[in-house]
């Protein structure tokens, strides 16, 4: 679909423009949308493009910080910026830029901002619907309080309670560290899963 304004670029966003009291929906490209946005037009509809990320990042970058009444110190910012999803490698910056998750574990990695994020996007942060009939592996998302308690930790982002996710590609060291963390936190299901991974790893090649 081409942009309704320049008829040249691919439209990535729909906006509602009100002229003379009449509403009109326009599908615009990134450039034209940016021009319109500066005129105070509401962006209504957000196709799954990176443009969505821009908008969300804008919303969150400003609003989320304001809502957490505590002043945002630079160290905290730095720490957030260093967060990388251990499973898929999505960084905090990418998450803010694209507004999408890279893998199911990203929900865990970025759990510290999810409640606020979901309330912005969805006006709720609690699932109220169906559960899978045949449950597979579910992602346990730590409580926000728990995530927040890790704020004082070292800035690496590895030690915080957020990055407890490991997978088959993780090294033995990573797995063992994760196992210890899981046991410390009394998350025995996770611990068992990680233990099995370690066994598989050791049995397989004995590498690392």
């Amino acid at each position, binding site marked *: 679909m081409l942009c309704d304004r320049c008829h040249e670029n691919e439209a990535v966003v729909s906006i509602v423009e009100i002229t003379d009291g009449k509403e009109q929906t326009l599908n615009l490209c990134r450039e034209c949308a940016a021009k319109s946005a500066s005129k105070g037009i509401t962006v209504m509809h957000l196709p799954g493009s990176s443009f969505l990320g821009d908008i969300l990042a804008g919303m969150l970058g400003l609003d989320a910080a304001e809502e957490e009444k505590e002043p945002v110190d630079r160290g905290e910012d730095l720490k957030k910026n260093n967060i990388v999803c251990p499973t898929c490698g999505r960084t905090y910056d990418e998450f803010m830029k694209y507004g999408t998750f890279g893998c199911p574990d990203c929900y865990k990695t970025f759990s510290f901002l999810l409640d606020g994020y979901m309330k912005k996007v969805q006006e709720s942060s*609690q699932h109220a619907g169906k559960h899978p009939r045949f449950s597979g592996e579910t992602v346990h998302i730590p409580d926000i309080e728990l995530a927040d308690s890790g704020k004082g930790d070292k800035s690496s982002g590895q030690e915080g309670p957020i990055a407890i996710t490991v997978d088959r590609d993780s090294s033995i060291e990573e797995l063992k560290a994760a196992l210890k963390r899981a046991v410390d936190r009394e998350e025995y299901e996770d611990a068992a899963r990680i233990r099995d991974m370690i066994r598989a790893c050791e049995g397989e090649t004995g590498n690392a």
Partner: protein
Amino acid sequence: MHKWYEDRECSEGVVIGGQVCLVRNISGYSFESRMDPQDQEELREKVFEAVREEESRLGLYFEERDLSDLSGCSRTSLIGRLAIPPLMLGTSEKVGLLLTPDEAVSILVNGTEHICIQVSCPGKHISQAYETAQRVDDALNAHLAYAFSDRYGYLTASPLYTGTGLMASYLLHLPYLERSSLTGTYSKELARFGFTLRGHFHGSSSAPGQIYRIKNSRTLGMSEIELIASLERLTDQISSSEEKTRSERDKDQEEIETDQTYRAYGLLKYARELDFDETLEYLSYVRSGCQNHIWDCSGDMDIFSLMIGMQDAVLISGHGEEEEGEKADVRRARYIRRLLPGLEA
């Protein structure tokens, strides 16, 4: 094969039809943007295999559609025929589509999310469509473990679908509400309930042909049943408001409209070039003509299927009657001329 959108119900009443879309991701894989082509291929195989195993139990038979033509005519055509939700398609070359012959049930793999199950229904039968989607969902789930969290529900790449992963919508024909400038008011009202009302077709006006889609904009905090019930309730309100506005016309207005309706029909039947927007406008009049009993529509006046069929991409991919270098508007006019039934004078 008769398509769901060719059903009589699509050309009667305010509600044209409805669609339910369920987004699911498989645990153990990254989301689409982080997947490599091998993983995508593996995922597609797994999903297709699961579908093949469940087909007979579901009583649904799927055909695999080739979407590898990235330049997109077949893709655009499938979107135009409502077989794929446009925002779900993505850009992966490993995209896969399974579609029932009536095009009412589709399973898209490797779109912007791992799986998107869509069920369409003619008329106001969204609950049945939802039931079907549930059955397909459970059938796939028996073979594939979904990414899920107790707190956030079904986990999706886009936070817009997190939770139920359910989008439910109705297509509505609202000529009278639009002429009374009431659709904007409704659209604002609906936002409070987490629903949107927008033009379905893209054209120069905000809702060409006065075809609107009412759709939920949230997937968290509300159960599937509640959501479907809200959609039904809000749609009932809009429908009765549309009916009421229509019934409140005075005699003069009615006469003017009858004339406009016949003119629209005449243009559709005899024009040699029809552009997209005007075609929709005229078809909208003709559809209203049926509701207003200006003429007998018990025959094959399947206006909605004409609206679907006359879109550029659908025209090109569908009918195999195009001539080299022919203008789309000429082709469209011929298509309409051929399929628009004659009137009993």
